């Protein structure tokens, strides 16, 4: 006897067909599981985005002045902490300011923007804001709030928006509510983290140490400026130059 009988062959064929059917069934089931997984992930991501978008931390619902203007003015300029501009810029202009100071406000509106436009945006210089508490003790929590916003890339948004909504100096307007409102308007992404950071010992000490530094440099009023670059001998003090051209000239000389 050689070869399989017709009966055996039919049996093997039937088993093969059954096995193929099982395989197809299994494949169909696994593909259904895969499709369901895609659906679940799409729903989860959509829910996360909706929750995130409706989070109150995004600002926009405040009654502050110039929220859009500040955002527009700083758009596209790199920020890190309270540093504005390309970190690789060789010249640094230091601004020692007090957020409650009305002269700082007018500098922020009239003089500093010219420097930002001509030398910061071009990558020639960067500006670092340093707190110099001079008006009243309320300037310390205000400065700490700006540093905490800087930890989330909104330091300059915070400073600029604060100035544009500044009240009468030492009148008690710098409340926790006011600081939080500025943070919302400045677009600080995570307000809970900002709250925690602004009250941290390290941040408050930073305000105190930059204030002490300004005093060591001999400054007695705000805003006071200093410049440092390859062409300067260390940090050179500039005092309070009354026009943007003087700051621009100092940057040129330091570069």
């Amino acid at each position: 006897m050689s070869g399989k009988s017709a009966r055996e062959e039919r049996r093997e064929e039937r088993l093969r067909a059954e096995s193929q059917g099982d395989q197809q069934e299994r494949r169909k089931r696994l593909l259904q599981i895969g499709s369901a997984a895609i659906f679940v992930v799409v729903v989860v991501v959509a829910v996360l985005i909706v929750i995130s978008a409706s989070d109150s931390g995004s600002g926009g619902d405040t009654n502050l002045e110039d929220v859009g203007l500040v955002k527009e003015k700083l758009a596209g300029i790199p920020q890190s902490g309270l540093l504005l501009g390309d970190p690789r810029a060789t010249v640094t202009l230091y601004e020692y300011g007090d957020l409650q100071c009305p002269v700082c406000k007018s500098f922020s509106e009239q003089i500093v923007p010219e420097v930002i436009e001509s030398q910061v945006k071009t990558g020639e210089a960067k500006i670092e804001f340093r707190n110099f508490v001079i008006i009243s003790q309320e300037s310390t929590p205000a400065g700490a709030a700006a540093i905490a916003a800087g930890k989330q890339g909104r330091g300059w948004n915070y400073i600029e928006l604060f100035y544009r909504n500044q009240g009468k100096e030492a009148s008690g307007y710098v409340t926790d509510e006011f600081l939080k409102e500025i943070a919302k308007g400045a677009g600080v992404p995570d307000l809970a983290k900002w709250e925690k950071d602004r009250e941290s010992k390290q941040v408050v000490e930073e305000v105190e140490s930059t204030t002490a530094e300004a005093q060591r440099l001999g400054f007695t009023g705000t805003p006071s400026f200093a410049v440092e670059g390859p062409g300067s001998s260390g940090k050179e003090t500039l005092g309070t130059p009354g026009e943007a051209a003087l700051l621009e000239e100092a940057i040129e000389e330091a570069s």
Partner: protein
Amino acid sequence: MPSEGSLRIAATVIAAIGIGVAGYIAIVESGGGAPVCVAGGGGCETVAESSYSHVFGVNIAYFGVFGYVLLLAASLLRGDLARMGGFAVSLGGFGYSVYLTYLEVFKIEAICQWCVTSAALMTILFCLNAVRMVGYVGKPG
């Protein structure tokens, strides 16, 4: 349809690069620093310092390393478990990458090149694993 072997080789290479990228972010951040953006700018630092960089107190870069290791294992193994596992992990990673990219663009308003690189790698891995699953799941090998 590419062969399963070539899909697995491509996934192995991409997962290995992913381990390098996520590993770099994890190592730098575990030392208290932030990844350095190649073209300068503070984007990487801003993203690293935002609260979104941690989930349950754990840096998401660690989850990234873990995910890429699982994907590497799935690409090296044969069979339906590896096909489905690779697809599931890459789908989760891809979905989370979409969410993180949304956060970077609309919430944090800063772009970290390392995160974008990882998101791109995860997208490629998702495509490779999806093709592998659709084309070969339930089949022998």
